[in-house]
């Protein structure tokens, strides 16, 4: 199948639009989360999303829209738990993560066990993205871009050094809440495209690759987006050619990019020594 033929299908177009938008959002937010050592936030929240999706299946409500408020509330919970170092952030994430899985399993069992719907959410089902989900991803993308524009330097200061940011008049709590809430929304969206098991890869791998080779904050953001979009579009296309799951191929492509970036960094380091 040629690329032109591939792109002419309606469901492929929706998959591409929301896939590209979700990969852009995760690539952008991921840079801040990785630098703040909150890269496992995506993992934890996606496990909470399992509970949300299961509740949706049980109540017969669109799972994504059921998961959204639950995941957003939990993200605020993570923020509260880790604030002022009451609990280490990674422990807070671990606790929330396991709570999500445990509750999810119980609700899923009540909803009739592991049917194909649930499997779709576990491993992603990008080709079944609906119009309303596509619209949601457009809205979230615009919000993320606006936040980046309005809070760019405040975000950088907060990520770099919270105590300094506070004494520079930045409302650090507000910035952090914004970051976790946006992460919550994008995690729910990404559950549809790559699945619960692989969401955190989308948040961690492209920013980490970009951080290997870029020296400026803006270039890190740009590289991260470029890698993420390339992997999503490429993975989707390859899934048609090889008849393999798109989510897995997306992540494999991201991993290949990470290796290449790692090699470039290694090569540069050797040259300068």
């Amino acid at each position: 199948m040629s690329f032109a033929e591939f792109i002419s299908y309606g469901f492929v177009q929706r998959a591409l639009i929301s896939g590209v938008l979700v990969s852009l959002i995760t690539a952008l937010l991921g840079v801040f989360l990785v630098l703040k050592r909150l890269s496992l936030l995506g993992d934890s929240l996606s496990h909470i999303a399992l509970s949300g999706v299961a509740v949706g299946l049980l109540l017969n409500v669109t799972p994504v829209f059921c998961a959204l408020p639950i995941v957003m509330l939990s993200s605020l919970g993570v923020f509260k738990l880790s604030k002022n170092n009451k609990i280490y952030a990674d422990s807070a994430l671990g606790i929330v993560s396991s709570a999500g899985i445990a509750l999810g399993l119980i609700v899923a069992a009540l909803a009739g066990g592991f049917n194909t719907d649930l499997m779709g959410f576990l491993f992603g089902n990008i080709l079944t993205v609906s119009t309303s989900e596509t619209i949601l991803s457009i809205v979230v993308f615009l919000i993320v871009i606006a936040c980046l524009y309005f809070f760019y330097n405040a975000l950088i200061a907060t990520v770099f050094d919270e105590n300094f940011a506070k004494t520079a008049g930045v409302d650090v709590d507000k910035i952090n809440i914004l970051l976790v809430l946006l992460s919550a929304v994008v995690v729910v969206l990404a559950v549809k495209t790559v699945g619960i098991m692989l969401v955190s890869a989308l948040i961690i791998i492209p920013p980490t690759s970009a951080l290997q080779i870029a020296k400026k904050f803006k270039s890190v953001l740009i590289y991260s987006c470029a890698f993420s979009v390339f992997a999503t579009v490429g993975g989707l296309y390859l899934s048609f050619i090889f008849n393999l799951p798109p989510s897995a191929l997306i992540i494999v492509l991201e991993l290949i990019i990470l290796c290449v970036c790692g090699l470039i960094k290694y090569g540069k380091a050797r040259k300068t020594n």
Partner: protein
Amino acid sequence: MSILEVKNLSFSYTGQTVLKNINFKITEGNYIALLGPNGSGKTTLIKILLGLLQSQKGKIILFGSALKKFNAWQNIGYLEQKANTPHNMPLTAFGVVRLGLLSTKKGLKLFNKEDNKKTDAIMKKLHCYSYKDKLFSELSGGQQQRVLLARTLINEPKFLILDEPSTALDSSSREEFFEIISALNEENKTTILLVTHDISQVGKYVNKFLILDKQIVFYGSKEDFCNSAEVTEYFGPYTQHLIDHLHTTGTCPLPHNHGHNCGHNHGGEML
């Protein structure tokens, strides 16, 4: 003008009381050395003053307004003892220094050409311009400290709070650093609260001592410090070292009990 007022402040980390009934006042132009042994609560006190930690008891008034309502952060320059910055942050030394201007921005916090010029100027003044385009995370500890100092001083804050700023600096940089901030105090009437163990070096510049050990042991002028019974009692046999030391730097009027003559090279470092 009153810069800072602390009333009946007490603080404890889960169970362990670290600060007890702290009361003091800082007025414009004061240059205060905050002294005390490790673990005496200096860093904790400073973090409370800036709202980075919440005290269980007490009242703090910064530039005339209660801490909760305070928002004139452009007046404050704070340098943390041990900043916790990500090791892979893609931010150059220049980028770090420029962030110091954030507190002067209202609304959209974007930087312009003027800001870049200011950043260059302060980096030249603090001799960190030569590595302005290097990644902050790839600088040495002392270089990072210079960059953070530049960030703290860039908008000429009225009140400087520096928590052991000289620890990572070599001795000549240290001397130079103390000269720079002392000049700010003399020329601009910048108020300074400086946590330090380098009493031998700052003794000649400061005009007040605040000695803290969970509570205030002494707060007052340098002259009173040299003659204070509390100080003598608190430091015991070491007092004379300290006072001798201040003599050699020519900053202490002769106390009555002068005559005990010890070596003065180690005197100032014992705090």
